[in-house]
């Protein structure tokens, strides 16, 4: 099928850029760096005394809690201290060390690196349409015997493919590096979280890791669609990068500001951080659930894609 060659072309264009390889290498270097640093600096003896350490923590938290109650501090803070205490007491009682690192624990710890992937994917998605306009190469592409939507679709799928490769590379790298550094076992390792009625419960780390990497890919997809849309609408990669990064990083601030409004749960910002919903802890907005957030994102994604394709189809190219 000739149409697939459009996709091949886009793929080649992405990987002909030096920056693409830097984007791929950087998270992997960071993962290796973290593992090496951790290995070098961690005192094994201290980890074996983890019960002592936790007892110390519990005492500190209790003091802080008393203080907070006296000063009528924020409920959120008080709740947080209470859950910390509960969690640590449960850990000591059930002999579950929070300091034991395995490949899976390492993957869980490496989860924040997804922001970095998000950033790089935004750069590529923002660039793939707008740079062809700014360089004028779009003319050479659009005069081919292909409908415009096919050309745009090939660009979209190529970006999504790049996001997938980044995502997969980080998963494989963190599992491999984690495994080599701490051993590949630990499938049965648990971590502590809370049930809805604030009881401590155990959960498999593996379960968390798999759920999380799945959700990360959903977040990445939404970011790709967002950056892609702005790149097409404004034909400017700086606006696209700016808006997408703003959504990714400043989203929480906006949600905090708007938290009292009922409609905030329907905004894109409020639903962009899916991984906090896995355990339902530290949520800014209590009403959100995973199925709800994913549905909202799906609606936004569909609308953004529709707008992108409609605008691209009709645009007069004067580049």
């Amino acid at each position, binding site marked *: 099928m000739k149409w697939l060659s459009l996709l091949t072309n886009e793929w*080649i264009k992405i990987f002909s850029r030096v920056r693409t390889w830097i984007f791929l290498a950087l998270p992997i270097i960071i993962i290796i760096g973290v593992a090496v640093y951790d290995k070098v600096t961690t005192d094994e003896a201290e980890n074996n005394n983890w019960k002592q350490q936790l007892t110390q923590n519990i005492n500190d938290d209790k003091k802080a809690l008393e203080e907070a109650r006296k000063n009528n501090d924020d409920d959120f803070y008080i709740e947080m201290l209470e859950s910390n205490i509960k969690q640590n007491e449960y850990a000591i009682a059930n002999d579950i060390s929070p300091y034991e690192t395995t490949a899976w624990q390492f993957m869980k710890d490496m989860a924040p690196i997804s922001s970095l992937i998000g950033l790089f994917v935004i750069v590529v998605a923002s660039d793939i349409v707008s740079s062809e306009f700014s360089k*004028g190469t779009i003319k*050479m592409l659009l*005069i081919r*015997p292909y409908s415009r939507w096919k050309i745009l679709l090939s660009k979209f799928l190529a970006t999504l493919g790049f996001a997938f490769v980044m995502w997969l590379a980080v998963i494989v790298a963190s599992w491999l590096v984690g495994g080599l550094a701490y051993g590949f076992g630990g499938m049965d390792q648990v971590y502590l979280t809370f049930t809805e009625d604030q009881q401590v419960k155990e959960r498999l780390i593996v379960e968390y890791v798999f759920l999380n990497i799945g959700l990360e890919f959903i977040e990445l997809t939404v970011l790709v669609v967002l950056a892609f849309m702005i790149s097409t609408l404004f034909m400017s990669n700086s606006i696209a990068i700016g808006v997408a990064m703003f959504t990714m990083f400043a989203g929480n601030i906006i949600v905090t500001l708007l938290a009292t409004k009922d409609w905030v749960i329907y905004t894109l910002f409020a639903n962009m951080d899916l991984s906090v919903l896995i355990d339902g802890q530290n949520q800014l907005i209590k009403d959100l659930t995973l199925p709800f957030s994913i549905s909202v994102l799906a609606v936004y994604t569909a609308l953004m894609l529709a707008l992108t394709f409609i605008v691209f189809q009709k645009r*007069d*190219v004067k580049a």
Partner: protein
Amino acid sequence: MTTHTLELKNLSKKIKNKTIVDDLSFSVREGEIFGLLGPNGAGKTTTIRMIVGLISITDGDVFINGDNIRGNYEKAMERVGAIVENPQLYDYMSGYKNLMQYARIMPGVTQERIDEVIQLVDLEYAIHDKVKTYSLGMRQRLGVAQALLHKPNVLILDEPTNGLDPQGIYDLRNYLRLLANNGTSVVVSSHMLAEMQLMCDRVAIIQHGKLVRIDEISNQEEEADVKVHFQVEGDLLQAKKILAELNPELVIEDFGKEIIVQTADMKTIAELNKQLVLAGILVVGIQRKTKTLEERFLEMTKKGGDVSEVAVPVNE
């Protein structure tokens, strides 16, 4: 019967109530080089962009090899090659990889064809270098190469000589002629009159988005366009008066040291010469001049100021 490869029918483009292209119709024959000539802003590039589907059509139709681009764009564009303004290339890839981008998505481009085209535009020595190292002329040639890869039968070039040196223009002209002789229809746009006259078989003159007229370059010598210049010594006004009295049917003007008579008839020219000599006026030169495309163009578009590139009329 002449086959038309490209047909424009009542093509119009309006942007915010401003008419850029106004009811434009013309047909391009198989194997001819067709020029779109007009001052800057006449609507040449807009027309070309509509033909290749870069901008939407407000009204009218474009047929390429019989297929309407509004209904059957993919089919219509299959045998079209084009460069709209400067060829824009991917700087971060080699010339070869750039060509491969287009080779991959066009039907029927073989490896032999790719090599052939590279050789044709004389880029073998630099084809694996990154395009960012290319000179403007090399970029133009690579642009031509990508437009020719799939052996189009309609080749559309917008301002193709921009940035080319005289040698490059000469080569391009010869090459386009070769393509046309092999049956390709070539459409070129330009505001450079002299160039169009050398390059094209027919030229459509466009002003304010409207078609003014279509000129055949080969048989442009129409009666009204031929003038005879008599260079005389002595009293110019006297000479003019004598001729005017003897030939009341002719249009006679004087300019500098010359008397200009509008006629193409050889016998009349000889008769006029005789009359002058008999009247005792020395004729030092007789010259037959055909109006150039340029003069006609300037006449038709009324104000010469639009065509900044050509300030001085070229004499033949």
